[in-house]
């Protein structure tokens, strides 16, 4: 079921990572996504792994839940590993597997690439796990603020984002509700020939679109009725503030970056 995938899901908890300013988290994770590609030997990979697992531990989210939630991604990680194992031809032949020669270089490279993949997914999912969608939108709006100078509709974009994020769970609930109602009327979503299963989507999609449009209309009306108008001069309900723990996080993260460049070969 959809609920087993945790990417994009927020898990409330009382941890340092949760309390960090969303801008701090976004900037750190953005940088991390880049520096992962600079790791090129065992110590540097180990260093980044220690950082990622450390950050994951700090979130106070149960490791079992994290690993289970990444289940759909495991497949991709394993696939990447196997692909490299069989395709890369570097170093000495180690053994043969299923008639294919396996090179030492392939083993190392496969391991590195899939570890990199794992770290990327783990760290980026930490962002959404510890930050509410609203915080993320607020942070993106402030981070993109300079683009206003070149007439980029930053506020409108952020508004669109927060509205979509707000309605994702609602739509998921609605999907579940309608598919249950139609299943009770004899629609079979799970078995049967492909053609029938595709046809089974119509009774699900039509009501879903109808209600989504109705909702959008109601929301627009409600916003207008309460006198909503664009970004200029609007004050905020939630003010973001960089405090000492953010500075500490930046310092620690700087040490991670420096360490990486010292360790890499």
């Amino acid at each position, binding site marked *: 079921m959809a609920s087993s995938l945790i990417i994009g899901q927020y898990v409330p908890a009382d941890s340092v990572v949760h309390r960090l300013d969303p801008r701090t988290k976004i900037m750190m994770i953005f940088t991390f996504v880049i520096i992962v590609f600079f790791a090129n030997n065992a110590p540097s990979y180990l260093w980044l792994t220690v950082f990622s697992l450390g950050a994951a531990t700090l979130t106070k989210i149960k490791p079992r839940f994290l690993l289970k939630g990444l289940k759909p991604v495991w497949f991709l990680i394993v696939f990447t590993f196997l692909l490299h194992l069989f395709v890369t031809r570097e170093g000495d032949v180690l053994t043969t597997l299923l008639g294919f020669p396996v090179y030492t270089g392939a083993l190392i490279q496969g391991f590195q690439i899939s570890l990199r993949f794992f770290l990327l997914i783990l760290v980026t999912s930490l962002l959404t796990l510890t930050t509410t969608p609203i915080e993320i939108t607020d942070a993106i709006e402030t981070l993109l603020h300079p683009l206003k100078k070149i007439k980029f509709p930053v506020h409108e974009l952020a508004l669109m984002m927060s509205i979509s994020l707000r309605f994702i769970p609602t739509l998921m609930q609605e999907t579940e*509700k309608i598919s249950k109602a139609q299943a009770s*009327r004899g629609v079979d979503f799970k078995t049967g020939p492909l053609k029938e299963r595709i046809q089974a989507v119509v009774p699900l999609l039509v*009501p879903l679109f109808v209600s989504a449009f109705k909702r959008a209309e109601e929301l627009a009306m409600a916003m207008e009725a309460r006198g909503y108008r664009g970004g200029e001069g609007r004050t905020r309900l939630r003010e973001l503030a960089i405090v000492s723990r953010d500075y500490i996080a930046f310092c620690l993260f700087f040490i991670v970056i420096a360490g990486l460049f010292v360790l890499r070969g």
Partner: protein
Amino acid sequence: MDISFKQVSHTYQVNSPFEYHALKSLDFDIKSGQFVAIVGHTGSGKSTLIQHLNGLLKPTSGEVVIGDYRLKADEKTANIKGLREKVGVVFQYPEHQLFEETIEKDIAFGPKNFGASDETIQARIPKILEAVNLDVALLNRSPFDLSGGQMRRVAIAGVLAMEPDVLVLDEPTAGLDPRGQQEIMDMFYKLHHEKGLTTILVTHSMEDALKYADHVIILEQGKKYLEGKPEDIFVQQARLKQVQLDVPEEIQFLMDLEKRLGMTIHYEKQSVDDLADTIKHRLGGGQ
């Protein structure tokens, strides 16, 4: 069909921070032909319970037996479609499930999925339209052009057209005008008797539960709190209050009557008119 819940528990999102025990060791039996009301405060697990009746949900432990069908954790239920044909469910706000171009097609959708022939369906439609009080002239209109109340009737007709043996109703009249509520409930009651259905009604209206049901189950936080005949259950004001439920108006009235005038009338499902007569008789009887 007889229905039986044996130590049924249901947990949503097992092994996650969002784990929620919605039903806890429920145990009860519903005899074929009974009209059962399920009441409880919001979030007490009523909708979760009824989704076990046609296999939309399975117990996470315990078992549910409906006629020849058995639902049990980690056990594949044979012929679940057959079960869904026998058990018709009218969900909360069923008008959200409408999707066809015409009302006629939408009503025919359910029976068609269960393999009823076009002639059979055509033969059923006029009777059903009459039952839910919809005009035949509407048949070729789009369901989306109707008023909310009419849409509700079309959705209900779509379930009735499957001619189920068990009818499950999740707050079927929520959000309708009082007149429409009464009409629809009376229609279900009539069908229940005419067709010998087993009816399970989830409701927030104690008056409806008292009036229509011959058995009441009260849920509280996923557990069975009380179970029995409505006339026995609904006089227990203190116990009902504990789970934020009210005594039905009729019984409240009789209680007040006893307190103020010292007149004791035993409630045994008399109609309001009969009650009025009894009171008139007693008052005019000139003690």
